């Protein structure tokens, strides 16, 4: 059993296994995105209050969920790298940062484009929006540390500390709509109750959420693979691979 986990940490095995997983992840992502978009843009009826503008939800909410999910994964990977010095954990943390930042950016921009017609404003400094913006800055901080520090181990250590300190922002973002009076609406799905959204809208929403998760893993593996090749360029298996090309 220990050998299994030990192998998982091996860059060579990671490279091989991720190579096999990638097509499956990529294709299931595409299929689910198409299904989700069809369900959301064509099948689902217009909202009785918001009309067609609510359809932004199918991008906005999955992006927001992913911005939080990726951050937790990045922080966890950072912690693993910090505690057990596993290189692959550092790679996953570093590779996750730009993807998480992209999702955060998307959540903010699509939210803004939804807010203008519905609330009458592109932006408001309420608790939900502000804390999500802070999340974006945290991601930028992690990316900045990786870019600024030469030695990869030191960079990963510093970035991990930042990511871990920033974890406090995650429950703040999630509960912001309950703890403060916000313009942003309260929880519809992630609450201890039946979701207060119609099934015809919930299903494409959840489909897109799963699709975005698969997308994240696809893109993460792509980034991690090139990073692993570069870091391990001196090793025998990489040289073998390079000779084959």
């Amino acid at each position, binding site marked *: 059993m220990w050998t299994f986990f030990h192998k998982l940490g091996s860059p060579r095995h990671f490279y091989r296994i991720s190579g096999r997983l990638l097509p499956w992840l990529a294709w299931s992502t595409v299929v689910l995105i198409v299904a989700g978009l069809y369900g959301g843009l064509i099948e689902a009826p217009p909202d009785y209050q918001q009309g067609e503008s609510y359809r932004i939800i199918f991008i906005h909410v999955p992006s927001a969920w992913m911005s939080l999910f990726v951050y937790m994964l990045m922080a966890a990977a950072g912690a693993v790298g910090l505690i057990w010095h596993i290189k692959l954990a550092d790679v996953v943390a570093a590779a996750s940062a730009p993807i998480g930042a992209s999702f955060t950016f998307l959540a903010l921009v699509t939210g803004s484009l939804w807010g203008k017609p519905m609330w009458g404003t592109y932006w408001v400094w309420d608790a939900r929006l502000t804390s999500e913006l802070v999340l974006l800055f945290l991601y930028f901080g992690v990316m900045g540390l990786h870019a600024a520090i030469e030695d990869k181990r030191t960079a990963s250590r510093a970035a991990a500390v930042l990511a871990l300190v920033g974890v406090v922002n995650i429950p703040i973002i999630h509960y912001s709509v309950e703890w403060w009076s916000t313009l942003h609406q309260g929880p519809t799905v992630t609450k201890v109750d039946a979701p207060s959204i119609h099934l015809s809208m919930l299903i494409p929403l959840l489909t897109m959420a799963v699709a975005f998760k698969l997308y994240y893993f696809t893109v993460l593996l792509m*980034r991690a693979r090139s990073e692993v090749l570069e870091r391990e360029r001196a090793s025998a298996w990489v040289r073998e691979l390079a000779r084959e090309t």
Partner: protein
Amino acid sequence: MPVTDLVLYLPRGDRAITPNLIESMETLREFFHMGGYGFYVWSAYGVAFVVLVANVVVPMLRMRDVRARLARQARMEEQS
């Protein structure tokens, strides 16, 4: 002149197809119009498309560069 007027100017033989074509064009127009919110909805989906595509293309290019560099290094080592 509304789109439906075109029906009068088309040859009789196509009458069976054209009403559906007009309807589909109307539905497509409504799809883009998004009940008046077209700008917001399609800007949102447009930004999403760009961001998601970029996050796929960038790692692909990086991998290509890394493999090219590694191959070049391997060739140089073989020569020396």
